[in-house]
């Protein structure tokens, strides 16, 4: 059954056939569909990719190991979808991949998606000690990219930091960095987003 649905995806000839096939495969909610759904990210079909992303997000943690293993090094569009999906599932297993993507990927869309995801992982899934180490690493990465020369990366860093500040133990350094950005960031839009973040935290 799933095999047939998978074949329908891999053999779709038109963009709309692809969307339909991915919808059908997504509806099966089968873990066996995961590699095919991830491959859809690389087909340059945004509508199909959106369906695949929603399906993988719903499958959740079970999809995470394959998402981490099947990151497309040659297609930044596909990588951005992978990061958005990992961000939405929010499994802390994705921490390393998100940190590397947020700080080193050449494509801004990938970095932004990863930065947003870094703030919002399900930290409670980790033990006390691991949680502290993981959160510190996420914080360090987000503070670093909050100084990026690209405004959109700084914007994503603020969104990540705002989420991360839900952990009260991390609020102090985040609030300090926000104060600094409010005083020195040259982009009005960035300063406005900092203000919104500050109101959310307070």
């Amino acid at each position: 059954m799933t095999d047939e649905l998978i074949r329908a995806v891999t053999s779709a000839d038109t963009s709309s056939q692809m969307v339909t096939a991915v919808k059908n495969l997504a509806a099966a909610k089968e873990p066996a569909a995961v590699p095919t759904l991830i491959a859809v990210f690389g087909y340059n079909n945004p509508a199909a990719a959106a369906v695949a992303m929603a399906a993988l997000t719903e499958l959740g943690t079970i999809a995470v190991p394959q998402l981490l293993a099947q990151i497309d090094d040659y297609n930044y569009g596909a990588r951005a979808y992978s990061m958005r999906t990992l961000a939405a599932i929010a499994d802390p297993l994705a921490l390393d991949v998100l940190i590397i993507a947020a700080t080193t990927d050449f494509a801004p869309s990938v970095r932004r998606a990863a930065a947003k995801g870094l703030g919002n992982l399900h930290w409670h899934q980790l033990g006390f000690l691991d949680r502290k180490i993981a959160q510190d690493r996420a914080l360090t990465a987000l503070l670093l990219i909050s100084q990026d020369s690209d405004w959109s990366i700084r914007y994503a860093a603020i969104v990540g930091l705002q989420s991360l500040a839900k952990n009260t133990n991390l609020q102090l350094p985040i609030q300090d960095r926000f104060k600094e950005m409010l005083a020195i960031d040259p982009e009005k839009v960035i300063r406005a987003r900092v203000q919104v973040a500050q109101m959310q935290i307070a």
Partner: protein
Amino acid sequence: MIEPSVEECSTENGLQLTPDLAIANLQSSDLSLRYYAAWWLGRFRVSRPEAINVLIAALEDEADRTELGGYPLRRNAARALGKLGNPQAIPGLIKCLECSDFYVREAAAQSLEMLDGKVAVSALIKLLAGGVAQAVQIPGRPHLTQPYEAVIEALGSLGATEAISLIQPFLEHPTPRVQCAAARAMYQLTQDPSYGEILVKMLAQEDLKLRRVALGDLGAIGYMAAAEAIAQSKVENSFKLIALKGLLEHQLATFDMGDDAIRVMNLMDSLL
């Protein structure tokens, strides 16, 4: 913030240049060094008076010519001067509007817009002479008789209300990009939302490049009613973020922080 492009790659080579070297290169006898130096000074925002002076001089260069009679160095110098923000360049750029090279005229119109060169309005209006009837493709070239998009956009940004009756007919020009430019300028000059809606409709066009142009225009005019349509358009998120940033900047400039500003930021957050 658009995905890295040729320009991004070139910047790595460009790091070997320094402002002093680029200024010297712009006066070198090696034409390719001069061409690159002109671009570099703009790209790295070298706004020192010597840089401005050599770039203004380059607007009258006669040495660097293409087979078709174009002036590559003048094009790059005109583009750089727009980025450097010094109004001293305005008279030279106005002269460039009469250059025989289409791309020099186009770069000059764009840079005059960036420099807020209101004194250029009458010279820009002259390029619209003959109206839509004259605005036809030049045989064998990939462009129209004049850089209509750049001229119309400049007139809109410069607040040239005296040009309204000249710009309006271009809403019916057969080239969709020219229609976009006219809608954008008409909105800026009249604040009539029907012109903003013309651009919103363009977001549904088949041609991805045209959808990107319309997004850019909506961002540039800060048309708030388009916020959701921008977020939902079938264009890469990077372009949508830039357009929404444009909306937000307009909103913050007029109303400071309010519900509309927060609405735009929520949309931007969703596109990360």
